[in-house]
Structure formats: C-alpha cells, structure tokens
C-alpha cells in the first residue's frame, strides 16, 4: 500500500464517520421523534436541515464519497472496501468521545466483530 492510498483511506474513514457523527449530533438537537405522521415528519426534516451540523455532515460525506471515487481510480476495490470497514471502530470512538455516548464493553466487542465480519464479506 502506497502512502497516497493510505492517506486516502484515512480521509474516507475520517470524513465519512465525521459526517455521520455530525448528522447524529444534528438529529439529537431535534430530539426523539415520537409522532410519525407525514406532516410531522416533513416538519422534523425541515427543522433538521436548518441546523448547521446537518450541512457539515453532508459536506463531510461528500468529501468521503469523492475521495472514494478518486481512490478507486488507482487502487483495487478488493483492498479499498475491506480497509474502510475500520470505519465502525472509528465511528464508535467518535460517538464515545465527541457525542458522549456510553459505549460499554459488550458494544465494543460487537463493533470489533462486525468490523472484522464486514472486512471478510467485502474481501471475499
């Protein structure tokens, strides 16, 4: 793996998970959705898109997406996709330290096993 490939995998994982964490932060500001009527759902989504973090999340996800496209232009998909499975661990770390979620031992073990499983599925 070249330095450039490793750098792009890092960007994809960090920007992708950063984007998801920003979306999660925005939705937590909205609070738990309890009414699933169409009018209320539209209102909730409208409010969500007025929160700056929602747009930060979408921007970071776009960076991850275009970095993935760029990386796939020179690196093999069989290397790139399993490597990005590490996103689950990075995401759980972000959730614990940035969102303040309490990730207990059982959830950590589950996250690591899912990460290995996804890498196997993608590498096969």
């Amino acid at each position: 793996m070249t330095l450039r490939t490793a750098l792009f995998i890092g960007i994809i994982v960090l920007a992708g998970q950063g984007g998801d964490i920003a979306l999660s932060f925005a939705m937590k500001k909205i609070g738990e959705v309890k009414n699933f009527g169409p009018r209320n759902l539209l209102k909730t989504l409208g409010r969500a898109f007025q929160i700056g973090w929602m747009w930060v999340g979408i921007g970071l996800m776009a960076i991850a997406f275009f970095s993935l496209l760029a990386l796939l232009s020179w690196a093999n998909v069989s290397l790139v996709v399993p490597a990005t499975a590490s996103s689950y661990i990075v995401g759980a770390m972000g959730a614990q330290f940035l969102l303040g979620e309490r990730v207990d031992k059982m959830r950590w073990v589950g996250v690591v096993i899912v990460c290995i499983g996804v890498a196997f599925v993608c590498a096969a």
Partner: protein
Amino acid sequence: MTERKTLRAKTYVLLALMVTFGSMGDVTLSRGMKELGRLHAWSFDGALVFFLRAFSSGTVWLGIALLLLFFISYLLVLSWADFSYVSPASAVGYVLVAVMGYLFLGEHVPVVRWLGVGLICVGVLLVGGTHPNTGQSG
C-alpha cells in the same frame, strides 16, 4: 409497554426499514445503471448525455427514491438512538444481501463471505443486547 420497550421496538422497526430500503435502493440503482450500458465517452458532452439518459430511467428514479427513504429512516432513528448502536447494527444489510443473493439469485457465496456473515450476526447480536440510547439507559 414501558417507555424503554417502546424505544427498543421502534429502533428495531426503523433499523429494519433502513436495511431494507438501503439494500433495495443499492440493487435497484445498480440495475438501472447497468441497463444504460457502459459510459464510453469520457468527454463532457458524452457524460451529460449519459446522465440525462440515467435520469430518464424509471429504475434509476426508483433506486434514488428508495435511497432517500433509507436516508430519512436513518435520520429519524438517529434522533433517539446512539450512533454507536445504529452504525454496527445496520451492518446486518450485508447479511441480507448475501442471503438474498444465495436464495433468490442462485449466486455462489464463498466460504470466507459466509464466515463474515456469521461474524456480523454475532457482532450485531452483541450490539443489539445493549440499550439503543445510553442517555436513557440509566
């Protein structure tokens, strides 16, 4: 039903919707794009014509609509559930795609992929055993 049980039940429903819409959206969009054939001309005009054809395909629009429903379900579940719960739990989509491919499309699934599917199931069961919202779990 207690509030805790209601929260868990609606998390499972939204996760099921996410996984279903996400997998169906990916498959439908991929099918729609394959129907168009390969993008041969890498010029601006060639790409423009290709994307105009893509956006006149009903299958592509169906795929986009399904992925939009996936995104809405994702946002809704994140309004109460932990990201560290939703993200690994949604990996069950890989299991669904492998099992559906094997059962309905007669695809050959290599042993390594089945091993991965098994590991994902174990991991999702462990994550699913924790409370979806640690802010409320006490």
